[in-house]
């Protein structure tokens, strides 16, 4: 049986690993350490805000992670063209994550899917409730309202060739209050590709909720205290006790 996945998301700003809260860098990690032996998958995102910034520090970091990473590695940040994708793949990515680039130019999804296959494209969607109380997709690090409904945008992305969707709640980011299950459920019900959920996990029971209430295929966390071997193993044991099939 296919296992439910526990995914670690690493956000990197100017070559330095950060966690984020409400989409702002929170504090600097003291250890560049990832337990690649218990986690099921790793996502590395360059969240450097300056569009013209040199990506070399990020690429160097990905290269060093990829060297000893024998689990799937998804990479992203600022991807706008197929050339960007080939650079990300060359430093060790197994798949790429697109967000604002796909909102601005949805054909980008199709271009990547045609060249690398649909399984190579993860459509990342950042969403929160707008002033009218409706869920809305925000691009550009959560700053720009798009007028798009997250479930509809996910469906559209699947049609264009996205092989996975990563749904992030902007308001839950760094809150430790748990995932936005309603948002996740809406998206996972709308598409037939696997959906990963990010933003808000602060306790292991939140992982269970992501799978059961959110309909997610993978739960993601970027919180530091999940970054040691024992905590990921313990989280998985907890999930197994709750009847979730995971890779122990």
């Amino acid at each position: 049986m296919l296992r439910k996945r526990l995914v670690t998301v690493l956000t990197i700003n100017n070559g330095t690993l950060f966690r984020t809260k409400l989409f702002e860098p929170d504090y600097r990690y003291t250890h560049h350490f990832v337990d690649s032996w218990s986690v099921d998958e790793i996502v590395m995102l360059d969240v450097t805000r300056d569009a013209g910034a040199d990506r070399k520090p990020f690429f160097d970091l990905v290269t060093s992670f990829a060297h000893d990473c024998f689990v799937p590695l998804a990479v992203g940040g600022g991807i706008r063209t197929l050339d960007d994708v080939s650079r990300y793949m060359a430093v060790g990515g197994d798949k790429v994550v697109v967000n604002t680039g796909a909102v601005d130019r949805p054909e980008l999804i199709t271009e990547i899917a045609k060249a690398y296959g649909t399984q190579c494209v993860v459509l990342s969607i950042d969403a929160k409730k707008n002033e009218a109380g409706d869920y809305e997709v925000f691009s550009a690090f959560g700053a720009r309202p798009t007028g798009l409904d997250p479930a509809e945008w996910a469906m559209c992305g699947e049609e264009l060739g996205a092989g996975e969707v990563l749904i992030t709640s902007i308001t839950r980011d760094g809150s430790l209050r748990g995932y936005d299950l309603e948002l996740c459920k809406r998206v996972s019900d709308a598409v037939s590709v696997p959906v990963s959920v990010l933003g808000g996990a602060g306790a292991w029971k939140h992982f269970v909720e992501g799978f059961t209430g959110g309909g997610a295929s993978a739960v993601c966390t970027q919180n530091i205290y999940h970054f040691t071997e024992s905590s990921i193993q313990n989280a998985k044991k907890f999930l197994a006790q709750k009847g979730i099939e995971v890779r122990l």
Partner: protein
Amino acid sequence: MIGVIDYGLGNLTSVAGAVQKVGFEPVISSEATDLGRCEKLILPGVGAFGDGMRNLNDRGLVLPLTKMVMERRMPVLGICLGFQLLAKSSSEFGNNNGLGWLDARVSRLQPEDPALRIPHVGWNELYQKGDSILFDDIPELPLFYYVHSYKLETSAVETVIGECDYGGTFAAAIQSGSIFGTQFHPEKSQQHGLALLRNFLEKA
């Protein structure tokens, strides 16, 4: 030296890194002369079948590789799309011919349970069949990492050395003489994947 075939698709860096990790020297190349000097070949691949074949053709690799594998019997391991390319044909985005080294064809995964999502992404068990050097020192029912929407089907059932179940079983690993292939990604499947890769590189 282990030739990692570069045809413009796929996670070559990951594959070469895993080869290095288990103690062998990878050579990433799209030149038939370089690849011909290697002891073994790995055909990696992430992507679409038609593009894969077109890229192999554009690089003039189909005939030289076929000679290396089918005449010189150089051991080859196809991974994911590289595994599917060993087949005669695929129905992905129209009908495309493959390398044809295996009597097999590729078709879309169609799980019996409609709730199962496509692509099949994640860790799933391998049911070993028969006895293959690929699985030496690997426990029963190992978990490997898969990411694919298509599957390989062969009438040569004796060549299927491992199956996976995702709303129905499919060929997850094949050995036919010195031709090996896995639908899963050994380079992304931690200790069992590295063990499998080491088995191929040491024993095939």
